C-alpha cells in the first residue's frame, strides 16, 4: 500500500469524484437547482369555441294516463315497452255503481215521461173547465143585466171563471216542470254514459309505454297515472350548461351527443331550445338538444354528454391554457426574454377551445416565447433551465 502511484493518482481521484458529486448535488438537485421549464411560442391559428354540458335523455312529450275520477282499476292491457297506436285501449277502470246509476237515471226519465202525460191530461181538463166557466159567466152577466138573476149569482160565476183560468196556468206550469225534469234526467244519463266511456283509458298518440304505475284492483284518486306513454320520436337531451360557459348559445347550433352507454360514439344533434329561465341554485342554463336522426333503443334517463360548436375564429393568437398563471393577483404568462430572463406579462384571454387552447386578445405578440410547464412556482428572479420534458413526468 505504499506505492506512490496509489498516493499520487487514486487518492486525488477519489477526492475529486466525491467533491464533484457533492458539487453536482448541491447545484443541480434540491432547492438550489434551476427550475425546469418548457417553452412554446405564441402561434397564430384557428380556434373553435365549444360548449360542454351534461344532460339526460328524456321524452319531450310524455303522457301520464290515468282516470278522471276516483276509481278502481279493472284491467291493465299493456305493459312497459309495448308500442301502442293512437286510440288503442290501454286500461279499463271498474264502473262500480255506474251501471246502476245509469239504470236509475233511465227509470227516472221514464217516470218523467209519465209525469208529462199526466200533466198534459190535467191541462186538457183545466181547459175544458175554463171553457164551461167562460160560457157560464157570460150567460149570468147577460141575465144579470136584464135583472133576471141576482147580482150575487153573477159575481159567483165571475169568480169561478178567475179560479179556472188560474188552474189552467198552473197545469201549464206543471207540464213545463215535467218537461224540464225529463230533460234534466236525460242529461244526467248522458253524463253517466260519458263517465262510463271515460273508464276506458285510451292512448292519445302512438308511442311506447314507459311506466306501469298501478295494477288491476288498485284504487286511484283522480289524476293519478296508471301508465306513462312516451313518443320515442320525441326523445331529446335536456342538458345543463354552466352559466360561465353559456356565452354564444344559439338555437339551431350543431351538437355532438355522447351517451354514457356508448362513450366512443358521437351522435349528431341540434340545439332546439334554450330555456329562458336558468337554474339559479346550480347556476346552469337548461337547453334541449334533439337527435338528428333519433337513434333506436334510446333509454330515457340515460346520462349524455353534449358538445356544442359555438364559434370559430381564424388566425388569432393562441397559447396553451397551461401557460396561464396567477401572479401577484394578476392573470398572465411568463414570457421568456432573449437573454433567458423571465418577465410576467398580464394577458387578456378570449375564447377557449375544449382541447385547451386559449385565444390571446392582448399582452403578447406572435412568436413570443412563453413558459408552459414549470417544475416550481416561478418568480422574476428564478434560475431556469429550458427542457423538452420536465424530469420525472411521464405524460
Amino acid at each position: 500500500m505504499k506505492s506512490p502511484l496509489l498516493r499520487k493518482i487514486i487518492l486525488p481521484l477519489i477526492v475529486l469524484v466525491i467533491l464533484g458529486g457533492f458539487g453536482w448535488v448541491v447545484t443541480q438537485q434540491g432547492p438550489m437547482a434551476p427550475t425546469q421549464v418548457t417553452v412554446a411560442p405564441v402561434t397564430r391559428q384557428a380556434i373553435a369555441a365549444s360548449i360542454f354540458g351534461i344532460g339526460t335523455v328524456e321524452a319531450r312529450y310524455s303522457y301520464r294516463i290515468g282516470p278522471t275520477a276516483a276509481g278502481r282499476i279493472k284491467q291493465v292491457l299493456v305493459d312497459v315497452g309495448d308500442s301502442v297506436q293512437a286510440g288503442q285501449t290501454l286500461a279499463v277502470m271498474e264502473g262500480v255503481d255506474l251501471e246502476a246509476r245509469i239504470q236509475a237515471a233511465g227509470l227516472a226519465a221514464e217516470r218523467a215521461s209519465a209525469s208529462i202525460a199526466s200533466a198534459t191530461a190535467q191541462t186538457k181538463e183545466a181547459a175544458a173547465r175554463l171553457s164551461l166557466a167562460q160560457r157560464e159567466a157570460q150567460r149570468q152577466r147577460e141575465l144579470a143585466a136584464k135583472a133576471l138573476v141576482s147580482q150575487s149569482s153573477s159575481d159567483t160565476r165571475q169568480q169561478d171563471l178567475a179560479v179556472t183560468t188560474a188552474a189552467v196556468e198552473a197545469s201549464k206550469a206543471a207540464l213545463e216542470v215535467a218537461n224540464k225534469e225529463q230533460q234534466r234526467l236525460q242529461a244526467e244519463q248522458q253524463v253517466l254514459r260519458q263517465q262510463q266511456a271515460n273508464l276506458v283509458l285510451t292512448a292519445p298518440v302512438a308511442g311506447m309505454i314507459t311506466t306501469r304505475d298501478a295494477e288491476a284492483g288498485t284504487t286511484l284518486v283522480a289524476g293519478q297515472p296508471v301508465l306513462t306513454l312516451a313518443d320515442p320520436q320525441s326523445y331529446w337531451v335536456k342538458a345543463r350548461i354552466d352559466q360561465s360557459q353559456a356565452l354564444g348559445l344559439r338555437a339551431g347550433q350543431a351538437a355532438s351527443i355522447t351517451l354514457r352507454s356508448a362513450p366512443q360514439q358521437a351522435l349528431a344533434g341540434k340545439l332546439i331550445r334554450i330555456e329562458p329561465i336558468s337554474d339559479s341554485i346550480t347556476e346552469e342554463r337548461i337547453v334541449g338538444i334533439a337527435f338528428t336522426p333519433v337513434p333506436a333503443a334510446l333509454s330515457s334517463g340515460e346520462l349524455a354528454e353534449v358538445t356544442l360548436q359555438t364559434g370559430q375564429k381564424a388566425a388569432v393568437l393562441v397559447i396553451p391554457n397551461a401557460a396561464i398563471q396567477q401572479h401577484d393577483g394578476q392573470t398572465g404568462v411568463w414570457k421568456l426574454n432573449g437573454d433567458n430572463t423571465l418577465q410576467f406579462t398580464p394577458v387578456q384571454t378570449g375564447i377557449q377551445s375544449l382541447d385547451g387552447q386559449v385565444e390571446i386578445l392582448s399582452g403578447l405578440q406572435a412568436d413570443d416565447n412563453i413558459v408552459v410547464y414549470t417544475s416550481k412556482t416561478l418568480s422574476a428572479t428564478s434560475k431556469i433551465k429550458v427542457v423538452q420534458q420536465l424530469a420525472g413526468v411521464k405524460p
Partner: protein
Amino acid sequence: MISLAARDIAHSWSKYVFTGVGLGLLIGVTLSMAGIYRGMVDDAQVLLRNSHADVWVVQKDTQGPYAESSSLPDDIYRGVLGMPGVEQAANVTYFTMQVQHQGKDTRVMVVGFEPGQPGAPPSLVAGRHVTRSHYEAVADVKAGFKLGEKIRIRRNDYTIVGLSQRTVSTGGDPMVFIPLADAQAAQFQKDNDAIVSGRERTAANPAFNRPSVPGLLEAVQASQITSHNVNAVLVRVRPGWDAAQVAADIQRWKHLQAYTYADMEEIAVQKLIATSAKQIGLFLVILTLVSTAIVSFIIYTMTLGKIREIAVLKLIGTRNSTIAWMILQESIGLGLVGFIIGKTVATLWAPVFPKYVLLLPLDAVLGLLVIVLVCTLASVMAIRAALKVDPAEAIGG
C-alpha cells in the same frame, strides 16, 4: 511546516475514507430526517399556497376544511362576495378517498374547484387545464396517472387532462382536481345499492308515501340525492385591504368562521402535524446524539490506534499543542468528509421517499456547524488520552 494531520491521513487514507463514508451515511440519515420534517411542514404550507386564497371561510366554530370537517351551503359564496374588500370568492370541496389505479389502491385527496378561481390547480407540468365543466381531472404526478388515463371517482370516470406537481394534502396525499359540481355530487354520493335501498326505505314510510298526494314520494326521493354543500369558500382580498379585517367582517356579519393565511398556517402546521413533527424532532435529537457518540468513539479509537506514534512524537519533543491540533484537524476533517458524503447521499435518495423530503440549504449549513461542533467536542476525549501518553511508551511499550 509540514501538516502532521495530512501526513497521518495520507498514511492510512483508506481507513480514514471508509470511516468517513460510514459517518457520512449516518449524517445522510440525519439530514434526511430533518428533510422529512421540513417536507411535512412544506406539505401543509404548499396546500395553503396552492389555493391562492387570503381568507378561508368555513362552517361556524370549526377549524375546517383541512383539520376538521366543515360544510356550508353552496350559495353562501354570493353573500361573501358582497362583503367589502372581497375580490374573489369561490366554493371548494375536499375529500380523501382511495382510487383504483392499475389494480392498486391509491390514496388521493379529491378537490372540487371552479376554473380560474382560488382553489384551482396551480401551474402544470404536463397536459392542459380542465376545459369541460364535467368529467375532466388534473392529477398530481405522484398519484401515478398518465395523461388520457381514466380515473374512477364514485360512479363516474374522469379523464386525466393535466398533471400538476407538489399539489398534496397536509397528509402528503396527491390531489386530484375535478370540477366543483362533480365533486359536490361525488362527495355525498352513495353506491347504487345504498341509493336503491334508501328509496325503498322512504317509500315504506307512510308519511312520505301518501296515496292522496301523488308525486310526494318522488319529490322526497329527489331531495335526498342532491347535494348543495361545499367545504369552504376561498376568498381573495382586494389589493389594499387587510385580510384580517375582511375575515373579521365575514365572521361578524355572516356568522361563519373565517381564517386568514396566518391563522390557517397555524392550524395546518402547528395543530395538524404537531404530534408527527414532535416525533420526528425527537428522533432527530436522538440521531444527533448517536452521531456525536459514534464520532467520539471513532476519533478515540483512531487516536488509541496510533498511541505509539504519538509517544514517539512526544519523545522527539513535539509540543502538546501540535499533537492536539493534529487530532482536532483529523476529527474535523472526518466530519467534513462525512458531511459531504452525507449531503450527497441524502440528496440522491430524497426522491425515493414516498413522502416529500425537503432539504433546505439552511439545514445543511446548520448541520455542518453542528458536525464541526460535535467533532470538536468528540476530539476532546481523544486529545486528553493523547496528552496523557508517556513518551517512554515509544521505546518501552
